[in-house]
């Protein structure tokens, strides 16, 4: 029985997916990154391998690494860019997708695909923390609300604040001062999600948007950001049938299988 492994080492989380010969997901894992990419890989392996009943790396047929830390994965047979892996993963789970907005911990990518899942165009922000997961993380710390609550709490208000700062650091000061003025947390959270959505859609509009469209990455789990993006575009996002955080690792696993078969044919 073959085990094709895809590992996606992001800046905030590490993801691993194992698929079988029929492209079915056998196991998946998402963890927060450890001190070094190498440690993250080891913890990922220690937790995913038992799930498919193996404890030995030799049972891994082939491995593809992707993400920010992809060069630090010792067992990777090859490394592939995140853009390609996300495109592949997204097309596999939903072939009708033409645009994928992936918002990761420290970057934001908008990927355009054709009907065969080939990459048509993409744009990426990895220069500025605004519009990435890091922004939301900082804002949740400042508000003292857990990251996963930032979405739900923002739905409780009809009067979101309008944040003036784009820069994450300035936004932190702005939020502190809003809290000092006694503005309610849901209003601020809603303003944060709205600002986040605006940044991402600004980026997306630079490469154009075609339906079907979806959002992947950790930020896809923030309902507030998703609703605001849908409002700005006037389009409903397709809901992915798998955890939106594993799309890159799944793509890596699919490429892993393809590469192995190609090399051994």
């Amino acid at each position, binding site marked *: 029985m073959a085990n094709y492994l895809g590992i996606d080492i992001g800046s905030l989380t590490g993801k691993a997916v194992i698929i079988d010969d029929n492209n079915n997901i056998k196991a998946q894992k998402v963890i927060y990154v450890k001190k070094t990419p190498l440690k993250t890989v080891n913890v990922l392996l220690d937790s995913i391998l038992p799930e498919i009943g193996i404890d030995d790396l030799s049972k891994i047929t082939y491995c593809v690494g992707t993400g920010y830390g992809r060069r630090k994965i010792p067992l990777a047979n090859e490394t592939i860019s995140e853009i390609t892996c996300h495109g592949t993963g997204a097309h596999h789970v939903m072939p009708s997708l033409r645009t994928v907005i992936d918002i990761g911990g*420290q970057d934001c990518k908008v990927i355009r695909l054709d009907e065969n899942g080939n990459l048509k165009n993409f744009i990426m922000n990895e*220069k*500025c*923390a605004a519009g990435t997961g*890091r922004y939301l993380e900082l804002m949740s710390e400042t508000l003292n609300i857990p990251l996963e609550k930032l979405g739900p709490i923002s739905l409780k208000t009809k009067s979101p604040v309008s944040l003036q700062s784009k*820069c*994450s650091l300035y936004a932190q000061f702005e939020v502190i001062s809003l809290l000092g003025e006694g503005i309610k947390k849901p209003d601020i959270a809603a303003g944060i999600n709205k600002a986040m959505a605006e940044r991402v859609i600004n980026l997306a509009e630079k490469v154009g948007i075609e339906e079907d469209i979806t959002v992947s990455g950790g930020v896809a789990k923030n309902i507030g950001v998703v609703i605001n993006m849908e409002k700005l575009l006037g389009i409903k996002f397709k809901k992915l049938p798998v955890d939106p955080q594993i799309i890159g690792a799944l793509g890596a696993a699919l490429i892993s299988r393809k590469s192995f078969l190609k090399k051994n044919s």
Partner: protein
Amino acid sequence: MIYLKKKASYLTFNAGLDIGSCYCKCVVINENKEIIATSISPLGGNPRNASKLTFENALKSANLKSKNIKNIVCVGRNRKKVSFKSHEESEIKCIAKGARELIPSLRTIVDLGALTNKAIKLNSNGKVVDYVINDKCASGSGMFLELVAKALEMDISDIDKKAKMSENPLPITNQCSIFAESEVIYLVNESKNEIDIIAGVTNSIANRIYSLLKRVNMEKDIILTGGVANTNYIKLKLEERLNMEIKEPTISPIYIAAFGASLYASEI
């Protein structure tokens, strides 16, 4: 000081209060525009309380009562939050006024604040003719430096000393403060020397200031003001890049805007 104590009740004093993003600074001057007291306190979450405390501390150190102060001019990002003021002035004008009073030959000022860096150009009469504020991105600001120092578990007052010890400053590739912070943590985990990291970070700030200076067509003489200017290493690196000397103010650069405000107060 003894002289002041005696005559305090019938001399005229004026105060400038600079309520920035992180610190509140107060300068009290006498009739001869001489500084007789300075005071600084962190803003905390409450600019109102911090400004009151800073003002009271300045009075206390000069042995004055608030009735001895003729006018109080407020400046800085949080100046609107002070109720006990006579007047408000813009940061650009106060920085220019304070700096020019200290060094009459000044033509260019770079203010390195907690959140923003500004370059101010003066004509030969000391009038502000141009200025550039970098207020879209915190890169190169005091908060940026503080964030990195925190990641290195380094005291802010040690930054200058440690940066100067480095013989091999590391290049920092990220401009974004938040990403630079992650880069620094990464470098620490790679067992890089904290001295080389902090030197690299301060170097990158000097580079940011250099491009800001180019945007206002700087002319001699130049001075650095604001709290970050206390990091002398930035000045040295900037002097290297500019190949010219940067003037040293006779008071701590963090008080220059408050000093300018106190001068405005004396003119009301």
